[in-house]
């Protein structure tokens, strides 16, 4: 085995870290938190210039052929910076779904995402289906689409959406304009923007259906695993910062005439966090590679394990970070609480712990069948 990151990935990570350090701060984050439009023109252009829009996609479809590992390197830094720029929501998430769908229409739309022209979101969730993305409650009856989509993450600006729907017992992916739906926009737990869509017998044409049946299932399932890995990367970046900041706080905060870091219980908490962070990093490396494995069963087992583990330990690190900060840890003014919300959010997007535990068990059973 070789755990050395490819040189190119290291470069991407360094660039991302430097770019965010120079262009994004806690103040930028707070300002963005209070905006309903999360697309800040200068930074959006800068990300495009850095080549991030094409990075996640294969060269054969007009991308720059980056791996999941590369994209995780960027997303990790976005998490570390608390950055709300909708890179994942408007580029990676819809782009990967379109790439996985792999039809002429979907690839044409992907082209427009890579070039930065299109503002497309993914609407694969609704509250009736929860995390069961292969069985959405939206119905496609002939040419009519009816039902709801919830928590459609779109940076507050998408004008088109890729939705999943059941057409009989067949899954279908449909691209349609936001205008075709009733839209309610709101903020989510991590500060990002999203929408609920209500579709009332929306008339659609054949070209709007990107794919159906097994092809649609495979695309959504590959997309789900890919996004699970990105959740972990984001949480890792956040936890890394919380650990560093908390360690620093323990070194400097004084009570009883000494630093709180001199108390043994605080030292034990921090050692636990250090160890957890190592294991979280191991899980991230694992899922950044296996999360796009051609072996579907291995891929699913990897993302299920990683997300289940993160939902427990990444959340734990941020909770403990707050505790060690005392009162100031629960204020809006300090970043620690914001990281806690980000991590809680990422632990609940694309499947919570219980959901992934069930997937893990199922994947294990399937693996045994194969052996």
């Amino acid at each position: 085995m070789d755990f050395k990151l490819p040189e190119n990935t290291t470069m991407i990570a360094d660039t991302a870290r430097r770019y965010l350090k120079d262009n994004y701060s806690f103040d930028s984050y707070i300002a963005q938190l209070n905006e309903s439009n999360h697309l800040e023109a200068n930074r959006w252009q800068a990300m495009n210039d850095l080549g991030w829009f094409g990075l996640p996609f294969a060269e054969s479809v007009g991308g720059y052929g980056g791996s999941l590992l590369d994209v995780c390197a960027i997303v990790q830094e976005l998490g570390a910076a608390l950055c709300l720029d909708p890179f994942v929501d408007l580029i990676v998430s819809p782009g990967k779904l379109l790439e996985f769908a792999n039809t002429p229409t979907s690839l044409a739309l992907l082209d427009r995402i890579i070039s930065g022209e299109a503002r497309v979101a993914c609407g694969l969730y609704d509250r009736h289906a929860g995390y069961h993305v292969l069985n959405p409650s939206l119905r496609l009856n002939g040419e009519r689409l009816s039902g709801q989509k919830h928590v459609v993450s779109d940076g507050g600006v998408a004008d088109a959406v890729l939705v999943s729907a059941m057409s009989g017992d067949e899954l279908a992916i449909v691209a349609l304009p936001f205008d075709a739906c009733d839209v309610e926009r709101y903020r989510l737990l991590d500060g990002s923007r999203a929408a609920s869509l209500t579709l009332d017998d929306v008339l659609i044409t054949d070209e709007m259906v990107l794919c159906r049946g097994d092809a649609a299932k495979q695309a959504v399932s590959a997309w789900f695993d890919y996004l699970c890995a990105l959740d972990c990367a984001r949480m890792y970046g956040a936890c890394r910062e919380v650990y560093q900041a908390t360690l620093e706080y323990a070194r400097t905060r004084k009570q009883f005439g000494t630093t709180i870091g001199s108390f043994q219980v605080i030292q034990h908490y921090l050692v636990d966090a250090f160890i957890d962070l190592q294991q979280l990093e191991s899980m991230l490396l694992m899922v950044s590679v296996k999360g796009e494995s051609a072996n579907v069963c291995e891929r699913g087992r990897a993302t299920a394990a990683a997300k289940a583990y993160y939902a427990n330990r990444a959340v734990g690190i941020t909770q403990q970070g707050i505790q060690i900060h005392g009162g100031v840890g629960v204020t809006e003014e300090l970043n620690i609480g914001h990281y806690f919300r980000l991590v809680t959010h990422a632990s609940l997007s694309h499947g919570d712990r219980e959901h992934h535990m069930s997937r893990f068990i199922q994947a294990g059973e399937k693996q045994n069948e194969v052996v």
Partner: protein
Amino acid sequence: MNLDFSNDEKEFRKSIRQWMKENVPDDIRRCTARGAMPDKNMQQRWERLLGSQGWLTSTWPEQFGGPGWSATQRYIFDQERASAGAPPTSPFGVAMVGPVLYTFGSEAQKERWLPGIQRGETLWCQGYSEPNAGSDLASLKTRATRNGDHYLVNGQKIWTTQAHWADMMFCLVRTDSTVKQQQGISFLLIDMKTPGLEVRPIYSIDGHHHLNEVYFTDVKVPVENLVGQEGMGWTIAKFLLTHERTTIAGVADIHYEINRLKSAIDALPTETDKQLAVRRLAGLEVDLMALEYTNFRTVAATDEGKPFGPESSGLKIKGTELQQRVSQAMVEIGGLMSLPWDNEEPIGEQIFNQASRRYNFLRACTIYGGSNEIQKNVLAKMLLGL
């Protein structure tokens, strides 16, 4: 041993339940059912209502206007209050400064301040913590200098819950910096409207305003607002820490939260999701039962006039941990439904809509009122003999 309530106690429960049914205002009930915290108006209306029954100060001795209930009756009352969807009362007047005044206060102070607390009319806040005196409270620096018939107070308090609602603050101040830290502290009552006193909001991570900074610049406080003697502040603060432990675990409100969560299980997407949630809830209920029976032992001991035994030591620690775990379970079980933060229409089951704010706020409950680390330090010293 007898682990059941007596017939009288059951009758008492019945009558309280009936009263709650008829009297908890609808808007307050709905607010609690949503998982939101009451605003000032709701809080005060509720406390005045209890005050008009003589029940607000149910923990006070009869001679100072308590209803003369046993600890068991108080416990039952709290259960019925919570399960009727009414909020807990604010602790600052009733559970803190009230007992301080009837224990250490002068006759004039009792006469002046106790009735307002009893009727739910005066709102109090607690001015203990400072930026550099949190866990190490004894190092507080806010200074009160005697100047004829008044003190001049200068300094800063922080994390003062409801200071923006309060009429009065009870405050720990330093009156002598030449003696040992603990001995130079005094207990003052300060009118929030005094010139020189400024309240600034602190927003907490649930997005709401509960906390404040309070700045004092030459704030004039009449000498008659000193409780006890100069230098007695620390003794008074310590007295409060050991006072009234019978509802500190928050059992009644945890019950209410678990029931709320139960009622929302039906909104989950699949049978498997429901089963997993039910199992997780059962785990929490089992833990709650352990806490509750421990709590019962404390209640029974109190009614027998015995001091709190070691069984009461973990009540705050276990209670706050369990509150946090229940609020976390609510968010996690809600899944996608818990993610929206400021939407007008809840997505699906309403209780999940506020769940993440509550979860965020409750991270504080292992920090305030003496962090759980400090609680354990105190218990180690008290119990272990190491």
